[in-house]
């Protein structure tokens, strides 16, 4: 699989999105996937989403991204590596 381009997004683009990013880096490494992860706020993420493969954000923000070409993955627990792993498998690996 080619190197994935990933956005991690949250309301302000400061706290939560960076936590998602740090956890994702570990999970992608564990799954043997190469990924380049950028973290930012939802507004910025929305305008750039079409240039990326995957968007990760809190489940409550999924509605913001309707109509984008990228795969949007909503997370319940932003720190749960297990949840990320399952959702990456279901939405990225199995569909590739």
């Amino acid at each position, binding site marked *: 699989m080619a190197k994935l381009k990933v956005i991690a997004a949250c309301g*302000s*683009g400061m*706290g939560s999105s960076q*936590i998602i990013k740090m956890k994702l880096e570990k999970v992608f490494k564990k799954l043997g996937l190469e990924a380049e992860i950028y973290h930012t706020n939802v507004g910025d993420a929305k305008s750039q989403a079409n240039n990326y493969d995957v968007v990760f954000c809190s489940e409550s923000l999924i509605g913001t991204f309707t109509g984008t070409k990228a795969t949007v993955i909503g997370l319940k627990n932003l*720190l749960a590596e297990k949840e990320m792993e399952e959702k990456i498998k279901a939405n990225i690996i199995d569909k590739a």
Partner: protein
Amino acid sequence: MAVWEFFQNNILTKPAFFIGFIVFAGYALLGKHWYECLAGFIKGTVGYMILNVASGGLVGNFRPVLAGLKDRFELSAAVIDPYFGQAAAQASVENIGRSFSMMMMVLLIAFTMNILLVLFRKYTKIRTLFITGHVMVQQSSTALWLVLFCFPGLQDPQVVIMLGILLGTYWAVASNLTVEPVAKLTEGGGFATGHQQMVGIFLVSKLAKKIGDPKKSLETLHLPGFLSIFNENMVATGVLMTIFFGTIITILGPDLMHQIDKGFGAKQNFGFYILEKSLNFAVYLTILQLGVRTFVSELTNSFQGISEKLLPGSVPAVDCAATYGFGHPNAVTFGFLFGAFGQFIAIMGLIVFNSPILIISGFVPLFFDNATFAVFANRLGGIRAAAIIPFFSGMIQVLGGGFAAYHFTTGNFGGWHGNFDWDTLWPIVGVIMENLQYVGVAAVVIILLAIPQIIYQRNKDTYFVIAEDFDKYKEIMAKKQGVPVEQVVID
């Protein structure tokens, strides 16, 4: 001596380079390549320089409005928002000729203090490490100004050490208070909250069940769709600032604004002048956040690494938005709305009762504090608690923030930190420091450190279990309640 002086004049008292060198040194210690260290140095330094441009812009954009309010009504004004607060704190510190670099040293000492408290958790009962970088920068800034305000004669090294201990104790103790509420909300999510309303979360977790009924939850509610535009910071700030500054500048009138603001062109329409002025705040806030994000991501990365390597078993205390996924999306919007009602009513109250300071709602406290409170309140006290608590929180934010901005004079530069803990706990700490000086600081640290001890004494059997293994915690509680695990009630 000459070397030290050179270092002091060019690096130590220049926050941009100081931060750059800290990132450089941190990366070097982690054994990264020289080019990664260099990249870190540039990102740290440029990030801070961006922040500086935005802070100056924010305060400068506000200046004519402040002058107008002073001229016409003898009023000062402050936006209660951590970014405005940080800019106003920086302006206050520099205004008395002190170096803002101390902010960064305070942050590092406070973080070290938090690490020590967790390392010795057998004695201190502290389970959490505060790692929310941008919040640490904001709080170090505001707290630095509070200490300089209360101890104007104190030398830099003493300021930094004393405040580092005080702030680090607050980070540890207050985030530790959120362990139980967050673990129960998230069913053992493995984190705590390290943000700006930690004392507030603890209070909500104690009050909510007395106020309402969790069975009457707000999940059935249908909220209007237009509210979703407030999900975006830039849009929300633009709307809020246009409402507030639009009203203020309209009252001040075009003639006065022409006199005091050179930026108001002779041929420019008054309405568009107002719009430009208001939206400028969204511009500077966006730039400020870019600056903070640039240098803070370097910091947070290493903090996270430290917490995983050095302190296994400790709980990371992170941004409050991490809890939103565990509440219904309605709770977040609901908290924001009722917080806004509370704030607007309190602001009317300030005007009616001739307060010497006018408060302007900032987006961050309005949204993030009250949305968080609503998420916790809804779980324990349903729709009633999720409405009443943010409403009163909004009022407290305005009144506490108004007191602080006026008393600690950051209102002169148009801002105060404004988040819940900084409208309640910290103004009190400030007044204690001002009146009792060193005795006051010592008393605050001792009282704070006693809090985890009290909670531990009350729940010896579950205190560490709830943070480490939530299933085991449920088993213990089920045994206590005499029911099977599936029926255990956790509130």
